[in-house]
């Protein structure tokens, strides 16, 4: 989570949005497979062993569930395997189920990487100019979440050692939760009003203000953004001309494998594996450096 996340927020955000949109809307098995593999490889560089394990524990049953349940809703397809209550359970529906599962896992994987890479400060930077007030609210709220959390824990412990709501029953927990929460409200709104005065005292609301950021747009950011957009345009064109069209019902259509679609696949594959490659390249470089020392 070093090399890739160092890119400027703009190319990062663009990249993730494009990956999410294409994974969801280009309903082509090759595209989805590439997205799943690329997304998985990249997510694997971002997570530790424990997280990987818990992710797998979630993704595998989920994909099985989707695969199995799809034929329950969808009785299209030409190859019935067996009948339930007079409804056909078709091979095509199962195949489509596998496809949906792969697509959903791919989207989840990219979303996960997005959450880890496009952190709140990058998000704020991107939208801070267009919507400064909303960005301010988000920034203050982000600050208050940990403060409130700590204050709530402290208040709860204080009440407990005073013997209030310490019986451990569910009713006690809910009532004490609500009381602590409501006291937290009083405390925080008072704080907010005071913070507002401090903001004014530091010059907020006096004419035009600038928006400082710690991010720099480097040449590499430009190259990355350019490549992402170029790939997106090419893929979009191929898709709009029906080159990537694919349908499962009544029987799966043959995969488009002529020159143009294959070019589109390569293009998308390069896009999908780019973050993983950037990350791996840096790892290798570090290992080389270390072995030289």
């Amino acid at each position, binding site marked *: 989570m070093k090399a890739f996340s160092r890119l400027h927020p703009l190319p990062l955000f663009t990249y993730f949005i494009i990956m999410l949109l294409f994974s969801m809307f280009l309903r082509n098995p090759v595209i989805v497979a590439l997205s799943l593999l690329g997304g998985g490889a990249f997510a694997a560089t971002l997570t530790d062993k424990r997280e990987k394990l818990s992710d797998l524990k979630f993704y595998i049953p989920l994909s099985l569930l989707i695969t199995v349940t799809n034929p329950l809703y969808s009785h299209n397809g030409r190859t019935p395997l067996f009948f339930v209550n007079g409804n056909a359970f078709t091979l095509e529906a199962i195949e489509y189920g596998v496809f949906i599962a792969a697509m959903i896992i791919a989207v989840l994987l990219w979303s996960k990487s997005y959450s880890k890479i496009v952190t709140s400060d990058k998000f704020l930077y991107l939208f801070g100019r267009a919507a400064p007030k909303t960005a301010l609210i988000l920034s203050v709220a982000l600050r208050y979440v940990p403060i409130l959390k700590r204050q709530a824990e402290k208040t709860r412990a204080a009440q407990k*050692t005073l*013997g209030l709501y310490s019986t451990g029953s569910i009713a006690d927990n809910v009532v004490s939760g609500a009381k602590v929460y409501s006291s937290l409200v009083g405390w925080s709104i008072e704080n907010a009003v005071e913070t507002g005065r401090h903001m004014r005292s530091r010059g907020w609301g*006096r004419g035009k203000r*600038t928006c400082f950021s710690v991010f720099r747009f480097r040449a590499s950011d430009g190259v990355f953004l350019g490549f992402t957009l170029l790939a997106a345009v090419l893929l979009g064109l191929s898709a709009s001309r029906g080159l990537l069209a694919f349908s499962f019902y009544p029987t799966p259509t043959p995969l488009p494998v002529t020159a143009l679609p294959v070019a589109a696949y390569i293009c998308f594959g390069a896009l999908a594996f780019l973050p993983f490659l950037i990350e791996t390249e840096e790892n290798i470089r570090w290992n080389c450096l270390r072995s030289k020392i």
Partner: protein
Amino acid sequence: MELLTVKDLSFTYPKTDAPALENISFSLKQGGFYLLCGYTGCGKTTLLRLLKPELAPFGALSGSIRYAPEFGDPPAPHEIGMVTQDPNEQIVTDKVWHELAFGLENMGLEQETIRVRTGETASYFGLAEKFGASTEALSGGEKQLLSLAAAVITAPKLLLLDEPTSQLDPITAMNFLDTLKRVNRDFGITVFLAEHRLEEVFSLADTVLAMDNGRLIACDTPSKVCEQLKDSRLFMGFPSAARLWKALDAPAPCPVNVREGKALLQNSVKSKTGDGSLSQPAKVDGSLPPPALSAKGLWFRYTKDGPDVLKDLSLTLRHGEIFSILGANGVGKTTLLQTLSGVRRPYHGKVRLFDKNITDYKRGALYRNGLSLLPQDPKTVFIKDTVRQDLVEILRAGGMKKEEAAEKAAAAADTYGVAPLLDRNPLDLSGGERQKCAIVKLLLTEPRVILLDEPTKGLDAYSKFRLAALLRQLAGEGRAVLCVTHDIEFAALISDACALLFDGVLLAAGEPHAFFTGNTFYTTAAARMASGLVPGAIFVDEIAAAVRT
């Protein structure tokens, strides 16, 4: 050059009769370091806020505040910096770099200018490593440094500080004040600092202004102010050296720090014929009262792979005893209290209250007529809209009827002198008042063991003495008191025994005189002055008594 001139300033808050400030006149010179002292509620905060137009309170004002022309008219926000005691209120953004940039953004400066200025400021204040961190990941001391840096970054002409160190431990506080002095010296920024912890800060200031009841009662050099106010009630909060000077009835000039105090003492001891050693207080013999709370072999850590915070810690607290535990920040004092009070569980070892393990008390019985913990932040003790409601609630939770609870709450409030505060909102009380109400709430559970976490945080000298008296009274009733604190002077004053918490165990437990004279750093200012001259003395009075005989 006069930066600011205040003339005949009076101020009255809406819906009150008594003025908060009365006929205040003074002026601040360019580059000075001014200390404003006085007890909580004397009008320090009101005065400081009136000097900062955006924070000025509403009310009736007479007299004048005149700023030098270069402030602009009205004075521009970036020309006057302000730091207050609560970092939660004054830090605005979620990242350190953004907090530093905030004031500059409001001035409309360019990206590159801001980049350079935030960078150099972060380096100057030692915040460079935290530049990308989120503001909530900072410690209390770092937050205050950040607030100071964010105020200084706009290059103000005047810096106002309202008790900026009151939430910090002594070492962090000194670090902050040293940085403040450096800012004053390196950039010539005028500093106007309101403080009530005066032991160290007196010698930093060029000029001390003292306030009492909304009036300015002195304004001169630190030493002269001590001389002028030696009979005022403010004097008990003044540095130990000054109090020693008064106790010895020595001639002017009055010493204001340990070095000067020690020099004074050296002369006094020499001029007397006695050997200057202190007669030890007679040891009280007899059987010790039974233990109320005891811990044996406590081990605690927060996470499975984390470091141990408590390592085989044992302690015994007896009925009627006040036991203080001192220690630096983050050494695990609060953790210890939470473990003793059952909020956290040790992974090894046992805590016994009276004759039972605390885990054997079921359904909150531990906290009824058993032990009570006063947390560091007394705001967390109150969850209702008035003090009265909070007091009644805790009695009702003990199974009392509504009318009876109301009566008992009122009676308790009378006993401990908080009756006038009953119908106030806990958030509107001053630190000292809130502390007192919190203790009353805690006493309504009739605890026989009272645990206190930093009870003097944010209290002025006067409130501290009142708290000390209250604790002695509670111990006299046979209650056991365990107090963890940074406040060395306070611990020396109240304790029957003290100990130092270090590396997960208690070191050097003992009676205060033995404890503090045995320590070099962790000891009272009086003991530091007395060391080598009046052995065994840890209070100003003791030194004075020894010198006089």
